[in-house]
């Protein structure tokens, strides 16, 4: 589904990603772990097409098409979704209005008509229930005055509404208490099918207890230095990253 080949990216002349190779197949959950500043969020942004970052080398192949030159909205139309680490506020635009606009813009790009209002309403009800969201929440301005947990829940709600092929969860667990973490993880798990894939970016192993990865990658200084199964995440939790850094130096 997603194939990243020798990806290099920089911001303001400073190279952050230094040759990433990654392949994700339908139905898989991958986790990317790494210390602060290793390039995790940059990778998420670059896959989503944020042009604050300059791709200097390499390709991103999504469903057999090279999407490296596509705009963020075109990537979204193809089914790439990014759950933001820091979701932005849009005052005066309700959660409902925003997701409605989003869904209909995606449909328009795919040559489909607007979703009928009753279908939209039904879907909103169903997905907000899945994430245990209050109805009142839906009429509030997008992310304005939301708690950290509400913001993240809202991200996963949008993901549930859009049903992407590839969902990238950037530090979705940060700012969540244990109950919220469980609700959000449950949501993510229930949205999993054999046809879609999830890329979980996280600092801690905690989230991976709930959203269990098939593959864990360790990102260090812009490169994937080690990949393994879910046991690797546990090892990292116990030992930290220093031993891997030392391995790098010795190698």
């Amino acid at each position, binding site marked *: 589904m997603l194939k990243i080949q020798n990806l290099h990216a920089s911001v303001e002349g400073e190279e952050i990603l230094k040759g990433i190779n990654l392949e994700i197949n339908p139905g898989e959950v991958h986790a990317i772990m790494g210390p602060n500043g290793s390039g995790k969020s940059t990778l998420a942004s670059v896959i*989503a*097409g*944020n*042009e*604050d970052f300059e791709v200097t080398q390499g390709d991103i192949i999504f469903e057999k098409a090279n999407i490296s030159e596509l*705009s*963020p*909205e075109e*990537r*979204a*139309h193809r089914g790439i*979704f*990014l759950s*933001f680490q820091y*979701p*932005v506020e*849009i*005052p*005066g*635009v309700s959660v409902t*209005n*925003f997701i409605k*606009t*989003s869904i209909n*813009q*995606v449909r328009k*790009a795919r040559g489909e008509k607007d979703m009928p209002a009753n279908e939209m309403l039904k879907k909103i009800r169903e997905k907000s229930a899945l994430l245990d969201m209050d109805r009142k929440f839906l009429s509030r*301005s997008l992310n304005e005055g939301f708690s950290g947990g509400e913001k993240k829940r809202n991200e996963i709600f*949008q993901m549930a509404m*859009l049903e992407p092929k590839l969902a990238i969860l950037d530090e979705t667990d940060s700012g969540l208490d244990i109950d919220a973490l469980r609700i959000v993880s449950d949501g993510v798990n229930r949205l999993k099918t054999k046809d879609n894939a999830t890329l979980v970016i996280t600092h801690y192993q905690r989230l991976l207890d709930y959203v269990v990865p098939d593959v864990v990658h360790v990102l260090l200084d812009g490169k994937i230095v080690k990949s393994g199964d879910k046991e690797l995440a546990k090892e990292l939790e116990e030992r930290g990253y220093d031993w891997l850094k030392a391995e790098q130096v010795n190698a």
Partner: protein
Amino acid sequence: MAYTEQELEKELQNKEYEYGFYTEMEADTFPPGLNEDVVIGISKKKGEPDWMTQWRLDAYRHWLTMEEPNWANIGYEKPNYQAISYYSAPSKKPKYDSLDEVDPEMLETFKKLGISIDEQKKLAGVAMDVVMDSVSVTTTFKKTLAEKGIIFCSISEAIKEHPELVKKYIGSIVPSTDNYFAALNSAVFSDGSFCYIPKGVRCPMELSTYFRINQAGTGQFERTLVVAEDSSYVSYLEGCTAPMRDENQLHAAVVELVALDNAEIKYSTVQNWYPGNKEGKGGVYNFVTKRGLCEKKAKISWTQVETGSAVTWKYPSCILKGDYSTGEFYSIAVTNNFQQADTGTKMIHLGKNTKSTIISKGISAGKSQNSYRGLVQINKRAENARNFSQCDSLLMGNKCGAHTFPYIEAKNKTAKVEHEATTSKIGEDQIFYCNQRGIDTEKAIALIVNGFSKEVLNKLPMEFAVEAQKLLEISLEGSVG
């Protein structure tokens, strides 16, 4: 495609005026210039009684003694008042009984604007008094209104048919000596609308007028007078677009509202006159005086969406004379390219327990300057007066300006005055967030701007709100993407 400030700016600069066309029509136009003969000539053309001619002349003589105001935060080349033609009327036929008789070219113009009379007539509850270049062309729904005793006609017609009402109220709220532009308007006004709601009557439909400027080099000076008798209600809509012109066009209107005891007047404006091109050439000068008087327990509500004109100088105001009267001002002002707007309101609290609300939303893009200027004045006698003001500015790019000039004068200790102000920018992070959800940049800006303006858009009557949203999109992101 990520969106940088520079790109946003570039695209906004490329925005072209959508309604830039000009209809060829035979016109009866005065040669340029202004003197007493011209003032008398206008009055004669309109078949006005002597008292009106004299009133105009007095205004003209006073205007000669005045100076053009300089205090607003705007810079423009002062018009040469002797180079303007002060009267222009479609000459083929002054009045039409049905649409079939209307100049087909004029109908075509309306179609281009997407406001064909056909369509508008079908819109339930909207009566149209169409003003095209100074003379009323057609008035609809008159019968329904007449049954309720409501008078809705051109001001020229009112001067002839209802002289006692006009004589009583014209200049009573905005005296002909009030300011430079009001004096000029009083001397040379060519037409406008008159509306009278009798005691206890609730006007059953939104009253709507489209003003337009269509003759090169012709300033348009409308005069509007709305009188709501005791316990009556009316909602009045005013919308404007103008064809593209190279030279600056002067527009100096006067609107007077009279709300007697317990009456309520809602006055909504959507203004979309030609703002000039992206180099700042051309565009309409919009120097308008709008003021309303509230008697006891009366309420006046001004709502405006200002997206057009090269220069705007406009302060719809309320004189809260009666006890327990209420004044409201809801405004969205959009400036782009080299547009300049200095707009706001004056809330003059004279009566006891008077209340006013001001919500102003300024959106600046390009190299434009957008100023809010407002006065809240609580006078000595105005016990327990209250005001709430909120002024929000939204900036796009980094070459535009947003300014707020709130003046507060409280002469009574019981006054409660609150003022809130915010300034924000459309961020690249907001745009990227929307993009990531499949929303392109053009749509994203529309969404953000509409969200920002929501409190004011909500105050507009339904059919106007849709048009206003469309205008916001045209003004800002019509060019983007």
